[in-house]
């Protein structure tokens, strides 16, 4: 596949993944007046399974293929970017686990007192990491 097509597919998958992560963090919120309904949470979980998770796999697969083709593995910016993407992947796991817990009718009651501060922190971290990744790829500072 042409490198430009690979890059386009990688960027598209990354956008889909980050959008799905923010959707997961919004759907995991509660309890409050604006708490998402159980149906909405189930929909987001289904979306995560069929769209967000495959997008993450595509990001990793296409990204590693591009890096191997371009011999970027010795570059410092790529190592920093890999660390950021690893952190985003960990955040993906955390958010989907939280949402699964919240969406489960049996176990949602014992998480009523979970603070939402950690979710806000995760959402902000997702945005900051996305900016850091964009800067590392475009500027390639080291």
């Amino acid at each position, binding site marked *: 596949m042409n490198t430009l097509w690979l890059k386009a597919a990688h960027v598209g998958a990354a956008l889909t993944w980050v959008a799905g992560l923010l959707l997961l963090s919004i759907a995991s919120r509660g309890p409050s007046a604006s708490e998402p309904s159980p149906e909405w949470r189930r929909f987001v979980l289904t979306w995560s399974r069929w769209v967000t998770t495959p997008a*993450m796999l595509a990001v*990793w*697969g296409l990204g*590693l293929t591009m890096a*191997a083709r371009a011999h970027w593995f010795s570059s410092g910016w790529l190592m920093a970017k890999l660390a950021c993407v*690893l952190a985003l*992947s*960990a*955040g*993906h*796991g*955390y*958010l*989907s*686990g*939280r949402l*699964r*817990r919240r969406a*489960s009718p*049996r*176990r949602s009651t014992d*998480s009523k007192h979970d603070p939402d501060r950690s979710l806000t922190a995760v959402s902000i971290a997702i945005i900051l990491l996305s900016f850091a990744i964009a800067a590392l790829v475009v500027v390639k500072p080291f």
Partner: protein
Amino acid sequence: MRSNIHPELALMSRLRQVAFLEGATLILLSFVAVPLKHWGDTPIAVSVLGPIHGLVFVAYLVTLMQTAAECRWRARDVVLLVATSLLPFGSIIGSSLLRRRVGAHLGQKAKPLLRWPR
């Protein structure tokens, strides 16, 4: 009661499977592929196993965080499991920890991985 614990046990079981794969690919990479590259002048094994181990490690990290968030594990346990996954044969310690977690979840005394002969 059984239906209450079933989803979490299924998650832990999946985590143990991914942890096994992660440990196995790390051992193969460290003790087969890397020596072949440096002493056998055969870099192909590292270039094949390296990305495979990398992807399995990502799968392990995602599954670990998902399980920890769903089962409400302490951050200390997560850090310990990540640390053990970075070391060759560290997955044996990780597996023991997971086994204890499953035991604790079932409300039973956790079985140790190794028993000293009496």
